[in-house]
């Protein structure tokens, strides 16, 4: 298997789970990031709390890079066309489908929600299909 990092993946996942638990235990809300992001701009309810959560999402990595001095790996397409289409579809799709990798994939599956399991299988499937098609055009080989 290529580039496989199970230990850091599992460690990071457990830390993410702890964040979900802390947020749910104290506020009673599930940490679905697409929802928090969307509500920040479209709803007055819990707005300051939503903004602070998003701020934390940025400050956490900033602090981690500062203190751990680990190299930052960030490889992304340089096509602005792809970025704009992708961003739009992620925003539009998560609102129609009611969640993303965190809301459906982590919180929903943890609640054994059938809707979230179906949603997660669906977006992983269309994501894999998209990458497969791009590869046929010579992108992401």
């Amino acid at each position: 298997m290529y580039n496989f990092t199970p230990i850091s993946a599992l460690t990071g996942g457990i830390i993410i789970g702890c964040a979900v638990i802390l947020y749910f235990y104290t506020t009673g809300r599930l940490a679905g990031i697409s929802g928090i992001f969307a509500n920040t701009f479209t709803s007055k309810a819990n707005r300051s709390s939503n903004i602070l959560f998003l701020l934390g999402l940025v400050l956490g990595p900033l602090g981690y890079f500062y203190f751990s001095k680990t190299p930052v790996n960030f490889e992304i397409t340089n096509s602005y066309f792809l970025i704009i289409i992708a961003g739009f579809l992620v925003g539009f799709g998560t609102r129609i489908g009611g969640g993303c990798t965190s809301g459906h994939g982590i919180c929903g599956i943890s609640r054994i929600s059938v809707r979230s399991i179906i949603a997660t299988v669906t977006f992983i499937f269309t994501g894999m299909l998209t990458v497969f098609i791009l590869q046929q055009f010579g992108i992401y080989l």
Partner: protein
Amino acid sequence: MKEKIVSLLSGIIFGVGLVISGMTNPEKVIGFLSITHNWDASLIFVMGGAIIVTAPFLYILRNRNQSSLGFDIKLPKKIDLDKKLIIGSSFFGIGWGLVGLCPGPAVSSIALFEPITLIFLLAMLVGILANKYI
């Protein structure tokens, strides 16, 4: 005030988890979605790790009506499968597969000062508003 502090703290912990997991790097996500070529299964371990700690906790708390700070616990009540769930998730998956960014890592990657992710977030906001006003 306490709610604001825990929200910030939850975001910080979530963001640190994302970085350690490697999921802030779109290349890792594309590696997972690339099932037929050089597959990288790491993402399953990220979701699995998060679920194994979250699921038991949510199960224990399943009958609570109020959070520790006194807020009403509101869980999604919908259980029927509808077209919107499938269509929306399909669109999301296509966008995710195009560049390897989903909402959490997209926000966290602001910390990397990569201008391209700001364009992604702006397009994401347009998608959110399009859904709200169409």
